[in-house]
């Protein structure tokens, strides 16, 4: 009995990870941002969610993921209700709320990312505007979903930014008003183009507006030690570098 007790104590000392393998509570944007993040039957899904889930599972953590509105996610992290947010680009205005991986503020394509995502410019089909990389030339209004971190960049460029909670609303306004632009991903735009309501009514410009790294960012109020956060980020990096895992993941979306 004494021996078993000593063994148990040694085990706990030797494997600090076991000691911290508490349930981690993460949130994710509920909007349909297929294939990266989306909610199905109130469950968070998508490539980014899968990578984070696997990383935490491999490290022995239990996990709860809740999809909810993006702004609510940030508020919840500010209050310490969640340990972090899955899939968020670096935003310096959130520095006091969220703990991003090292050097996230400097990196265009961070090694710590879950994935890299390109944002494209979409205009009405008969609009002669051609985006060649100069953000200031974007036609107003610039429609984008709430809390995208590039919103600040667009506002700083003096553009008239309209924020909505869903991409669909942005496309509806683009097609209705026949002016301005929408900022979103190629896949979201192509999926919209499959719907009769939008088919052949807009064009996706060839040059991306911006390419951003999306992270697992932890709440500053999370009780997870920084060493554990680093381990999780390292695990994400490892998974992203796993040739077979990533190809299998891509094939399922």
């Amino acid at each position, binding site marked *: 009995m004494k021996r078993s007790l000593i063994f148990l104590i040694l085990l706990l000392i030797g494997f600090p990870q076991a000691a911290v393998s508490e349930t981690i509570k993460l949130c994710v944007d509920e909007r349909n941002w297929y*294939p*990266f993040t989306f909610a199905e039957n109130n469950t968070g899904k998508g*490539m980014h969610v899968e990578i984070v889930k696997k990383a935490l599972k491999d490290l022995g953590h239990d996990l709860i993921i809740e999809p909810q509105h993006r702004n609510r996610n940030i508020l919840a992290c500010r209050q310490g209700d969640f340990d972090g947010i899955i899939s968020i680009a670096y935003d310096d205005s959130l520095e006091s709320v969220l703990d991003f991986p090292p050097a996230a503020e400097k990196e265009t394509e961070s090694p710590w990312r879950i*994935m*890299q*995502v*390109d944002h*494209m410019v979409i205009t009405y089909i008969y609009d002669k505007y051609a985006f060649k990389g100069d953000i200031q030339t974007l036609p107003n209004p610039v429609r984008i979903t709430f809390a995208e971190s590039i919103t600040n960049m667009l506002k700083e460029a003096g553009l008239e930014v309209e924020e909505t909670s869903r991409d669909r609303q942005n496309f509806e306004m683009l097609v209705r008003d026949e002016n301005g632009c929408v900022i979103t*991903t*190629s*896949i979201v735009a*192509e999926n919209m183009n499959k719907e009769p309501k939008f088919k052949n009514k807009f064009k*996706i*410009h*060839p*040059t*991306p507006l911006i*390419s951003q790294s999306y992270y697992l960012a932890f709440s500053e109020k999370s009780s997870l030690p920084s060493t554990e956060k680093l381990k999780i980020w390292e695990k994400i990096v490892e998974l992203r570098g796993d*040739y*077979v895992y*990533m*190809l*299998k993941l*891509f*094939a*399922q*979306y």
Partner: protein
Amino acid sequence: MRKRMLLKGSVFLLLLISVFFLGTWGVASAGKLTADIQSELTKAGYSAGPIDGIYGPMTKAGIVEYQMNTGMDCNGLPSQNLLKHIRAHPENKLSPEKKREKADFVRNIQKWLDIFQPSAARRVEQISELHWFHEVSEPFRGATIKSAAEHIKTHYWERDQLAKAFEDITGIHVEHDIIGEGEVVRTITDQMMTGRVIYDAYVNDADLIGTHLRLNKVVNLSEYMENEGKSYTSPYLNLGDFLNPEFGQDYDGNQLQLPDQQFANLYWFRYDWFTDEPTKKAFKEKYGYELGVPLNWAAYEDIAEFFTGREMKNPDGSVVQAYGHLDYGEPSPSLGWRFTDAWLSIAGVGDHGLPNGLPVDEWGIRVVDKIPVGSTVERGGALDGPAAVYALTKYLEWLEKYAPPEAKQWEWHEAGPKAGRGDVAQRAFQYITWLSDDSFHQAGSPVVGKDGKPVWRVAPSPHGRYWEEGMKVGYQDAGSWTIPWNIRGERRAMAWLWAQFCTSRTVCLKKFLVGGTPIRKSTVFNYYLSENSYKYGGLIEFYRSPAEKKWTDSGPNVPHYPALSGIWWENIARAIKGEVSPQEAMTNLAQQQDVMMSKLRLEKFAPRLNEPRKRSYWLKREGAPKPERPEPEPKTISYTELITQWNN
């Protein structure tokens, strides 16, 4: 009699004189017309050569340029209509700026035309073709695009020579990145599935055609050429001149990928050793049949055993302890394609049929009406059947017994040129791209004779005991230009121009001489290669033979190459390490492949797995999966007889 002869002679002379004068008049008349056209074209700012009435390459190029600029039919020929047109349309005169640009262009292409020799296109045709690229790319001058390709000689040449030429001629800068083939597969998959703009175009193996036609995430080139990309499609492209354009086509014949370089897997052997009389005698004494090109694995194995450890001499005087086999075994994506590139097919895993076995192909996948229905024998597939286990068993056995010991640590690209070092007697399947390595051709190399000719030859790969006539004979694939769906507008147009430039008739013969990966018939049937075929050890004969069509790639039935191929090398690596038996490895692989197939999200022809049945149900039926069968008698053929068959 004499009078009659005299009369006949006078009539003949009269005829001769008439023909001479009429001919001279004709020439003089044509010469004047040509001179007038040269003069008018020169006045209008076009380069049509000296005004001498002689119709040469420069005159033709000038006429073609004028015809293209003015929307006339581009035949490049002088005619009265053409002359009238030039005189009646002074507005077609080139501006001074345009003249300057043209002068630069002509200067530039002279340099490149010298580099692109020999060529299957005559010089005038080259000028016309390059001129087309120059004109059509005008709106894109100063732009940059990015492409990616695997690390073989052909693509290095494209990066180091063709990208510069393309920029000089079109003003479009290309960053042509050379990365590993595994990375090409991974990156294009990333781009297709996430919509990121990583590269504008890839040279991606046509093995992925089954993926592309199901995912619908690459540009349908046939549609593009007909519609949006019509004006960016070269009038000189001529898909009929490509050796195997079908590799890049979907079930309906739409071109989704354009071949850029292709290479077959062939049997490679030391012709000098195989024809050495004492060696032949020793072989016959030991095995009871003639040493020759092995037709089956039984003979290959005998030959491997015979040469391994045998002291052999090279033409450079070096004496080596030979190996009877060459292969590689380092766990990496390339270990996977060592198997998916038809090792199972030449073992005889699949069914009869070209380009791929039906209903079971060489990946062991059963396909019904374009729908994959299973890989395991229980579901009607053959990936864990006796033939597949036999294929893996022989691979492991030969790697252990007859290959250089370090081969287990080699990847595909490391093993590729190793036969050139002079201690390998044969290789069951050699990717011919590596035969462009200098060691296979350079004087003084252990595998080049004193007369400067190679002492090696290529032949069809021997087959395993499950192989039958009517099945694909071997593997070849075409690294093919593939433009992801999210490359749009002018980027798509530039990518398409770059793809066409790299595959143009102007450059293809020279590209073959550098990289050994032909794509055009006009390359392999060119007189230059007729005169120099001796340098290629049977390769030219292979590509000229109708048999070439029996070497095919993975084909359209493999539903998702990137996701499925990854599973292969992980399982094979475990068998190499001895962690699992060949049967266990193939069973795990087949089961995992079925699980993966059931998860794939595809736009069309997505897998729908058969319900499992007893193995015996499927093994008792005709075709694949095939039940155990005994090893046949070893068989060889003389190389001379084989070449005669190819030539006929």
